[in-house]
């Protein structure tokens, strides 16, 4: 079995551009303020948390592929470049075969809504500039163009758990030597159409946007060595009753896989990063599944809001950042999506001495 290491992480969130902003928010442990957004004929305003403008215009926005992109592509690229760090030039030079897994649920809805409005009102004048950006894989294509990679590149669509599923696929690509490194990016963008759809199911939730990214390789980037050690099955559900069972099965499988015989065993050295938002109805299934967890726990979505696949990515990024900087030996991530799957993953801090030297 191949060992899989996390070589970098990146985040663009309502907390700001970069992992340090996310880290600072988690340290403060105070939910970000939300803002009210309205539109004509909508009976009540909707609260959202949007990504702030970057402190300086990111250099990548001058790339000709990124000048007209919608926010989701900019978030995805921002997070991906942060995760890739100093390895980006190796991709462009061809020294590193990079795979890209870009994951979304709502995707490029901003441009899709705009284009459909034009097409519906008068297709004869619908903009050919907008349409290409409506395609699910447009951001992944821009990212590949920016990095200068021609390697395998999938856009995966699904609920939040898709990000964790993609980690397993990346591990497969690395294990079979199809790629030397793999970027996994989860991204979403705000739009009133998504907000309205979201409110049909969750009146009290606060929708947000952004991206998270993880860069995996077969060698660690350096101490501490953060290793991906387990991903459970994807437990499908389509009803609320099945969602509760799926969340529990993911939790139990992660425990079995990590040699924890008792579900209520105190685990002071293991961090849990869950997807709880502080909303009783939405949280119930995941809350029950992990109710006996007595170790340390963080819940980024309580502070940031719901951003589907991007939120799952933030969970992984936050867990890895805590694992790297604090005294934990492992971190569990629980992702219970809204309409597809429950899934969980574990990362561990590994002894570098046990990692054989070799190419990335």
């Amino acid at each position: 079995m191949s060992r899989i290491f996390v070589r970098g992480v990146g985040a663009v969130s309502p907390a700001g551009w970069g992992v340090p902003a996310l880290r600072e928010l988690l340290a403060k442990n105070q939910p970000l303020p939300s803002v009210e957004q309205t539109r004509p004929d909508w009976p009540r305003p909707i609260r959202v948390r949007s990504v702030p403008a970057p402190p300086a215009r990111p250099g990548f926005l001058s790339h000709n592929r990124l000048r007209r992109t919608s926010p989701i592509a900019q978030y995805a690229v921002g997070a991906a470049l942060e995760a890739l760090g100093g390895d980006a030039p190796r991709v462009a030079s061809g020294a590193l075969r990079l795979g890209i897994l870009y994951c979304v649920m709502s995707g490029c809805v901003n441009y899709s809504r705009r284009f459909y409005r034009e097409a519906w009102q008068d297709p004869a004048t619908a903009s050919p500039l907008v349409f290409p950006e409506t395609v699910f894989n447009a951001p992944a294509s821009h990212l590949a163009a920016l990095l200068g990679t021609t390697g395998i590149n999938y856009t995966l669509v699904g609920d939040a758990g898709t990000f964790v599923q993609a980690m397993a696929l990346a591990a497969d690509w690395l294990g079979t030597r199809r790629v030397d490194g793999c970027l996994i990016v989860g991204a979403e963008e705000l739009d009133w159409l998504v907000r309205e759809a979201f409110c049909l199911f969750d009146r009290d939730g606060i929708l947000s946007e952004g991206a998270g990214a993880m860069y995996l390789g077969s060698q660690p980037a350096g101490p501490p060595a953060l290793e991906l050690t387990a991903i459970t099955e994807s437990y499908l559900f389509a009803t609320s009753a099945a969602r509760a069972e799926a969340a529990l099965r993911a939790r139990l499988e992660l425990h079995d896989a990590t040699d924890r015989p008792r579900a209520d065993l105190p685990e002071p050295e293991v961090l849990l990063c869950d997807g709880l938002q502080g909303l009783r109805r939405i949280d119930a299934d995941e809350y029950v599944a992990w109710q006996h967890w007595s170790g340390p726990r963080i819940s980024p979505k309580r502070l940031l809001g719901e951003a589907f696949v991007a939120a799952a990515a933030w969970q992984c990024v936050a867990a890895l950042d805590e694992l790297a900087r604090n005294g934990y030996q492992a971190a569990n991530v629980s992702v219970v999506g809204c309409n597809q799957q429950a899934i969980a993953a574990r990362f561990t801090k590994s002894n570098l001495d046990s990692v054989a030297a070799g190419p990335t």
Partner: protein
Amino acid sequence: MLFPSPHEGNSPARIVITGAGIISAFGQGWKVNAAGFRSGRVAIRPVTLFDVSRQRVKVAAEVDLPATVPPGLLPSREMARTERAARLLLLAAHEAWEQSGWQTGASFPIVLGTTSAGMSLGEAMYRQAVAPPGSRRGQPTRVRHYQAQRQAWELAGAFGSSGPITIIANACASGANAIGHAWDLLRHHRAERVLAGGYEALSQLVFSGFDSLQALSPTQCRPFDKDRDGLALGEGAAVMTLETLASARRRGAEILGEIVGYGAATDAHHLTQPHPEGTAALAAMNAACESARLSPDRIDYINAHGTGTPLNDSAEAAAISRWAGSRAANLPVSSTKSGVGHLLGAAGAVEAVVCLMALREQWLPPTSTLRQPEPLCSFPIVREPTDARLEYALSNSFGFGGANATLILRRWS
């Protein structure tokens, strides 16, 4: 566990096809589609699904969707809520399932390709949202059912699977990527069986998008023609039941064909235009051949992506010519998009089934609308119904964003 996988194998498994289902503008099922592809029939006609009076182009390859679906696939209430794309998918999957002899209740991964899932429901959701006085009636159902994961879940529910669902949205290569990913899963012993395919339904948004780009042919879709002027959109679905050879033999299943190679690459040249030399297309074909351990001279037929747009076909012609070398001079190539249009996320899956048909029945599907071949084509383009001896067929799928995928299928004898 998805990782580490409990199913590690020493050597790659051989992957066979034990069921194939298809629905296109030719109709539903293998027989009617095989007849249509073999004869080079053209099923492109005026669009009736939405208003095209203000569109530059007014034709597409619409499916005559059956009024009923096989009973018992889904509860009738659930079936009533399904969107056109979901029904296309269910119909194709049902045919593949029946052919395969798989039993309900087994857990297997599902891998699907699509570009727009249940887009017509998304469009309806938008129209309802902006219509005064802002009624929400029916909106929750539209939101649930337009999403691709819902259609995949309906498929899983219909056949009793609880295995993982993967939905690949790599634009027009999605269907080929889905089958290729399924092949990867099986080959590396991550599963014994996978249900894989692609589906796409016509929608106003996508039709208007291609029309706005002036990518639709205002005359007739003529792939690889010197005077080609665009593509025709189509809709449909194709699904395959794929399994390891060991699994198929253990069940005593009838084997329809084998998938022996898959390659994927990304063209970073432009969001909507291929590199003029088809470099990523070449890379995908080379990767597929490498995985199949075949050289180009072993390939007997290429089902080209061949959209009929000026840029795609010249880039693909360049790529095929470079890839095939001297073999190009007598390597039959055709595009079946002349008959059923471009099925976008379903195209790769449908064209894989066309290759399977050609291999099983030993014929070449023609591009019957061709008049004057593009001079860049160094290979013969199949223009008439032709019988042939085929062992290997290669299928290309290229998409927006530079998603390029190639599959290689082998006759089972």
